[in-house]
């Protein structure tokens, strides 16, 4: 049996850490990081206990607990959790990888004067992410979805004095708002449709039984609206633009939020509410193609990128695309499996990159690195493991999960398979490029002057690397798919697909070695690609098109609306009322001339009017009421 108290502790421990740091420890660098680590470790330990409790029984148990949060006539919103094998695995990823990254951050952020603020944000993020994982209804999920967006914004813009970081934070926030609007519409629509006799509900468990009764067209629209949220949060085309810029944040943030957990929240949402998407073939096809195109586009863009973190960001985009595609092809298991392994090796790669950046004093251009392997052996080896896992080399974890997705595509849709296989080949190529340029060969002459300064990072940073490297290596063997979806029978590996994809991956790496293995100061690919390279440098012009749209279309509409508001609503209606009352007041105040006897006159006239009214002589009333008017004009 699952102990609900443990789940609640796992839920709220990071929030407590965040509040403690914000209230009492904003000046204490050392204790703030320790509190944050304690918070996330508490969560992790509780999750592990819950994990063992869930899998004690067969089939694994599920537990739902709800507190009534908002209760109106037709609208009931609960605050609770629904824990099942899928949720507990995701929870373990979030808290486990999170713990590694929190510990790493203690080393990475050591020199930053405002690191307590960083740990407070990081704890807030962990709390919100756990909220997404555990939520048992759409409204609560949406709330945490937004909280995650907020903490992402805070963390991207952590170095807010740097304009590019502040801009990137704002960009991420706005792009996510855009998609969340669609998401919210989807939630409300689903809620509206969910009344089949027992009243409407946001609860996942209630909705499961409702879905089969719904009109398929409306359901397709709902599913696509819900998918809008995924497009934003998981950075699918065409809203992928924020993720690349989000690399302005500190590297542990990139590892935790923009690689391992938050961007995976979209995939998790798809898997958790898969019952909404499953009946709609149209929606699933749309999802699959969105994922595949994102995957290919990001892989192509990564080839022309020179910033180590941005290369990894593109790779994240590409892998997220693959996961979305897997879900679109009807394989939540394959998608979630890849999410899990990806969380391991992508967090590892980012932390490795962070270790390099830390050693090189915030140098991120790969062409200025060269030969780091001998200087930083632990970082080098773990980075190599991550790279190979990402490329899908046997027997590392990436091989198993990626192969599952490729096999799924191979069996269902050959076009998608080709796209995904190309993306995988490109992945191997650009990761090979990154590795050979940054780590291979002899140390760069540029760094001659602080040659001996470049050294391995401290233990607090390398330990998480080693932990994640082990997970990346063995991730394929510990039966994650069965833990995620106990009801689905394990599939035998598709040998044909496995061999083809391995060959593609090796070929990609070999090509990369052929081009980048030799020492060079600039990218030899620039000349070969020619004009296409410019297109890649401009990221397929997405940002430019958006900027053009905002400057020329949205700005004009906004100006027009501003004009409408200022001149017509404020100017004519509000201002008109003011003018009217001022004018009439100016006119009427002459009646009040300060002469006692004229007041007495008005008083007497009033008395006469009242008298005439009582005897119902209306003609005389008219005549008498003309007298003050005449007097008035005489006085004016």
């Amino acid at each position, binding site marked *: 049996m699952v102990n609900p108290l443990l789940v609640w502790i796992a839920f709220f421990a990071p929030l407590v850490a965040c509040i403690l740091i914000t209230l009492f420890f904003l000046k204490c660098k050392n204790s703030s990081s320790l509190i944050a680590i304690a918070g996330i470790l508490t969560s992790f330990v509780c999750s592990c206990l819950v994990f063992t409790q869930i899998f004690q029984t067969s089939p694994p148990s599920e537990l739902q607990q709800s507190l009534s949060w908002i209760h109106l006539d037709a609208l009931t919103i609960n605050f609770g959790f629904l824990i099942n094998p899928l949720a507990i695995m995701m929870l373990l990823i979030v808290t486990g990888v999170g713990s590694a990254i929190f510990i790493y951050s203690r080393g990475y952020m050591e020199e930053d004067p405002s690191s307590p603020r960083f740990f407070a944000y990081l704890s807030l993020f962990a709390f919100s992410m756990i909220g997404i994982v555990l939520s048992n209804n759409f409204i609560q999920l949406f709330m945490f979805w937004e909280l995650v967006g907020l903490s992402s914004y805070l963390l991207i813009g952590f170095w807010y004095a740097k304009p590019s970081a502040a801009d990137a934070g704002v960009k991420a926030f706005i792009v996510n708002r855009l998609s969340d609007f669609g998401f919210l519409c989807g939630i409300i629509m689903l809620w509206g449709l969910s009344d089949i006799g027992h009243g409407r509900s946001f609860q996942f468990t209630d909705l499961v039984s409702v879905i089969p009764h719904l009109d398929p067209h409306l359901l397709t629209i709902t599913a696509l609206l819900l998918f809008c949220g995924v497009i934003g949060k998981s950075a699918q085309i065409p809203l992928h633009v924020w993720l690349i810029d989000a690399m302005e944040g500190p590297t542990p943030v990139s590892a935790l939020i923009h690689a391992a957990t938050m961007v995976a929240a979209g995939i998790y949402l798809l898997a958790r509410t898969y019952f909404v998407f499953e009946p709609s073939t149209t929606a699933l096809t749309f999802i699959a193609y969105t994922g595949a195109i994102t995957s290919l586009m990001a892989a192509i863009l990564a080839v022309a990128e020179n910033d180590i973190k941005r290369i990894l960001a593109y790779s994240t985009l590409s892998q997220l695309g693959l996961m979305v595609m897997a879900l679109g092809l009807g394989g939540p298991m394959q998608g979630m499996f890849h999410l899990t392994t990806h969380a391991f090796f992508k967090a590892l790669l980012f932390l490795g990159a962070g270790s390099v950046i830390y050693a090189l004093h915030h140098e991120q251009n790969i062409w200025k690195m060269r030969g780091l392997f001998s200087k930083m052996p632990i970082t080098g080896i773990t980075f190599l493991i991550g790279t190979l896992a990402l490329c899908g080399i046997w027997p590392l974890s990436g091989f198993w999960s990626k192969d599952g997705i490729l096999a799924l595509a191979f069996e269902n849709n050959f076009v998608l398979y080709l796209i995904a296989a190309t993306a995988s080949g490109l992945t191997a190529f650009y990761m090979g490029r990154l590795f050979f340029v940054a780590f291979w060969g002899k140390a760069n002459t540029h760094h001659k002057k602080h040659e001996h300064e470049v050294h391995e990072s401290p233990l607090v940073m390398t330990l998480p690397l080693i932990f994640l490297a082990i997970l990346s290596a063995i991730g394929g063997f510990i039966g994650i798919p069965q833990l995620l979806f106990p009801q689905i029978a394990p599939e035998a590996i598709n040998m044909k697909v496995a061999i083809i994809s391995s060959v593609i991956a090796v070929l990609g790496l070999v090509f990369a070695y052929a081009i980048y293995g030799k020492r060079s100061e600039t990218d030899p690919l620039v000349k070969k690609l020619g004009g296409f390279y410019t297109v890649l440098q401009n990221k397929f012009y997405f940002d430019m098109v958006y900027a053009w749209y905002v400057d020329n279309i949205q700005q004009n509409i906004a100006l027009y609306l501003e004009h409408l508001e200022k001149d017509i609503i404020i100017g004519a209606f509000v201002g008109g009322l003011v003018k009217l009352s001022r004018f009439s007041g100016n006119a009427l105040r002459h009646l009040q*001339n300060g*002469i*006692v*006897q004229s007041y007495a006159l008005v008083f007497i006239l009033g008395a006469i009017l009242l008298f005439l009214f009582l005897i119902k002589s209306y003609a005389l009333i008219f005549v008498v009421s003309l007298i003050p008017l005449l007097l008035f004009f005489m006085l004016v």
Partner: protein
Amino acid sequence: MITLGNYLILGGIIFSIGLIGVMTSRNVLKVLLSLELLLAASNLSFVAFSKFNGDYAGQLIVFFVILVAAAEVAIGLAIVVLMYRRLSTIQADELKEMKW
């Protein structure tokens, strides 16, 4: 035979004289005197009604009116004294500050 109508007409005449006095006098003291005429006219009507209807409530009200009139005159005269001190005049149309 004196009828109710005679009394009322007399009351009306006195009231009108009072009104014209209030409207046209420039001297504040005359205005106050005219006000007394207004009150006297209405008192006369009350008493006449009381007599012809055999209802003593009218007479009762007249006592109240006399009482209030006394108080009113006291305050009115006080205002006139203050006005004279301040403006050195008791012309009603000199009081033009009672506005806006």
